[in-house]
């Protein structure tokens, strides 16, 4: 019934001796969106690059296959012939908007050069077409944009330029290779909407390459799941997501944290009456000044602006927000790892500033940190046992046999073998390394731990294990966590309370269920709305994303007990 535009059969691509893609076949119909999903290294990008001859020369080789497009086999064309198709009938947009545009050339030149070289248009015609398209993709002042350089635009704006560039030639197929992965979640939502609108308007087919099941559910008509270079299964999005047949797809879908799935890992909520505040942040302020080399301030960015919150014993407070919102800065600030411009941090009622250098070091045994990248946060020169034991040595808590015993005990506690003690960090897997970090953080028996994106560098299955471990430890030891994350689904599973940060300020703070399910602040609503959900039935609420009023960024006020919102 529908016209098959692209028919790929038995595509095999090799990198040296290893096969990145093996025997891949699929079809793309006119006007449809095919989502190709898989983890990194599954061959999903390679397969599409191979179609257009964009694989790195010599390193990669197409061993077999056919790709019929309008009666010709793309794989049999030489470079000159392919060029007539590339950027004319098939366009691509890529993952990194920061690096996908040539930094030293004006946008105008980059937008029009294809039209001039390929279509033989005059510079003036190409210019006006480019301006029109810039306007179409939602960029203001297109004439000015044409004269700008890539670095003068934000990431989202650059991705819009990339899309404009791809759409200028009105291609039959648009290949979007992880086109939204590097963007913040709200920007991602906007870009996905733009692609959908353009598809509706121009009627092209879209090949959407992604690792995000949410994006698949949101965009795809059909989905193709890849694993280790091979097709695992394909079919209509609603079928595959609802009733995955391949075990791999099932596992993948199960591990994906879903917002709204509930408090699976949350430890038992404590009675509010017993709440004992162990950490109080009070009006934290910090601005990073870009100084010139004379030390004169040139520009200031407010990383923290009047940030206040409490953390009680045994509870998990999540700090969420997009990149640059100040959540990591807050984490470092409360540990005294960074001097503040104003405000104070109270640890069990004592101002952190009152501690002198050595007293501060002593105080650190009560507060520890777990980092995002478990490998980078472990000194590669020290053995696992020394790493875990180091805080004990520093604080003079144990020596000799006692030290060994306590370290062994910590290993057991985080689920590592005794035999792991003599190994070095690079000999551990990612999940094991994060366990090591946790063991180290636990060594001095701290009251609270700042966990900065502790699971975002891990695969989804490992992620769950680590969250499980953290919850268990909280239960057993009465630890408090300041949990920093951009992933609302993860936060929902672990946190008792959530603080939403934007531009260095907390805009909403309250119990997890209230913040995530009855958000009061438009920004929180936007954040939640932007999260793609791996369920085609639950497509995002586009109106929340389109919020274009002024975001209230004033002081926090109570809207309910324990629930504060910026006015």
């Amino acid at each position, binding site marked *: 019934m529908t016209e098959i535009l692209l028919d790929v059969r038995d595509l095999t691509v090799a990198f040296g001796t290893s096969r990145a893609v093996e025997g891949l076949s699929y079809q793309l119909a006119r006007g449809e969106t095919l989502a190709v999903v898989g983890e990194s290294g599954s061959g999903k990008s390679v397969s599409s690059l191979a179609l257009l001859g964009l694989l790195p020369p010599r390193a990669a080789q197409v061993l077999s296959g056919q790709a019929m497009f309008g009666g010709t086999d793309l794989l049999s064309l030489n470079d000159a012939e392919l060029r007539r198709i590339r950027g004319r009938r098939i366009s691509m947009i890529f993952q990194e908007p920061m690096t996908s545009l040539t930094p030293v050339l004006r946008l105008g030149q980059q937008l029009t050069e294809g039209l001039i070289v390929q279509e033989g248009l005059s510079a003036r015609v190409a210019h006006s077409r480019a301006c029109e398209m810039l306007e179409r993709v939602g960029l203001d002042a297109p004439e000015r944009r044409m004269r700008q350089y890539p670095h003068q635009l934000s990431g989202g704006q650059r991705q819009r330029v990339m899309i404009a560039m791809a759409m200028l030639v009105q291609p039959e197929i648009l290949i979007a290779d992880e086109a939204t992965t590097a963007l913040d979640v709200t920007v991602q939502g906007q870009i996905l909407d733009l692609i959908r609108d353009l598809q509706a308007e121009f009627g092209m087919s879209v090949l959407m390459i992604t690792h995000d099941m949410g994006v698949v559910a949101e965009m795809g008509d059909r989905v193709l799941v890849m694993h280790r270079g091979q097709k695992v299964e394909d079919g209509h999005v609603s079928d595959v997501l609802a009733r995955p047949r391949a075990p791999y797809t099932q596992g993948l879908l199960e591990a994906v944290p879903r917002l709204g799935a509930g408090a699976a890992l949350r430890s038992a909520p404590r009675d509010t009456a017993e709440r004992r505040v162990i950490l109080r942040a009070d009006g934290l302020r910090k601005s990073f000044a870009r100084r010139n080399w004379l030390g004169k301030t040139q520009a200031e960015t407010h990383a923290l602006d009047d940030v206040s919150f409490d953390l009680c014993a045994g509870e998990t407070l999540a700090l969420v927000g997009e990149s640059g919102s100040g959540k990591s800065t807050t984490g470092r600030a409360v540990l005294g790892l960074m001097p503040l411009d104003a405000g104070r941090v109270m640890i069990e009622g004592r101002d952190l500033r009152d501690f002198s250098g050595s007293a501060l070091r002593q105080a650190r045994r009560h507060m*520890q940190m777990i980092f995002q990248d478990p490998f980078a946060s472990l000194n590669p020169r020290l053995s696992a046992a020394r790493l875990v034991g180091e805080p004990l040595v*520093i604080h003079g808590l144990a020596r000799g046999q006692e030290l060994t015993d306590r370290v062994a005990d910590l290993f057991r506690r985080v689920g590592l073998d005794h035999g792991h003690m003599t190994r070095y960090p690079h000999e551990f897997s990612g999940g094991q390394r994060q366990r090591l970090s946790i063991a180290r953080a636990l060594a001095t028996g701290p009251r609270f731990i700042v966990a900065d994106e502790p699971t975002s560098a891990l695969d989804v299955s490992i992620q769950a294990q680590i969250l499980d471990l953290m919850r268990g430890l909280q239960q057993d030891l009465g630890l408090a966590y300041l949990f920093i994350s951009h992933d609302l689904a993860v936060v929902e599973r672990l946190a008792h309370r959530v603080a939403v940060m934007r531009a260095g300020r907390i805009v909403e703070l309250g119990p997890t269920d209230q913040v995530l399910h009855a958000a009061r602040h438009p920004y929180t609503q936007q954040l939640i709305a932007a999260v793609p959900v791996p369920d085609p039935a639950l497509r995002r609420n586009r109106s929340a994303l389109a919020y274009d009023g002024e975001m209230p960024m004033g002081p926090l006020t109570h809207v309910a007990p324990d629930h504060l919102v910026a006015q």
Partner: protein
Amino acid sequence: MITGTQDLARDLANAGVVRQRGFWRGLLASPSGVIGLALVGVLIITAALAPLIAPYNPLQMAAGPRLAPPSLAHPMGTDQFGRDVLSRVVHGARLTLLVGTVAVSLSLVAGLALGLLAGYAGGWLERIFMRLVDVLFSFTEIVIALACLAILGVGLTNAMIAIGIAAIPFYARITHSVVLVEKSKPYFEAGIAAGAGHMRLIFLHLLPNVVPTLIVVATLGISTAVLAAAGLSFLGLGAQPPQPEWGFMLASSRDLISRAPWMMIFPGLAIALTVLGFNLLGDGIREAMDPRQRRRQ
């Protein structure tokens, strides 16, 4: 080469790969590593066993006829005094190795200490210090070395010191940039968070992670030092007669270039091969340690 080295140091530090296992396997798998290792090995053996290898005393005049071309008795010919060029080249290996290691050790230790302190301390101290280093750097090493020699007077020992001093800004700068990379890694902050003191942070966390990268740089640095020393000797500012220093031998071959080209060819070849050896070894180590580099090949 120098500019490249700074990037190399930062790359290595960023990659955090200096500590990777299978280093020797990697080194032996790269052609540059093998050839470099072989050349440097030959140099070290030659230097160690010079009296056994050299057929004559390097200072003995009239060991053969004057200015004799290469022959079985004198494979590299003789010089204007009838000294055996081969014996001189063989003994020259000792001086070369000595100059290379002493000069590099001097600049490495001083540069490491300065760069480490500035990088660790941060703030105004760092700013002023690094500015000063930048300035010295732009004087270029040869001019600093000339200034040192103008103060100290000429001679091989002074040349060695001068080369060592001249390279301090370079090592300080590299150390500083590596320290900055290491300092920005979370493990360093993890150390602070664990409550470690200054000494612990510097000597347990920073130093062990900075030194391996610096060792790589120093390997390349030896080639620079050897070249510089030969250059100064060539200019008459370094080795003095009758030292069989290669650069000096080249200088004294200048007037005989048409009559006895072997006097110019062999010491020059010795310098070039030595420098090539250390450069290849450095490249080999770089390849063995930095997967990014390996991929590029």
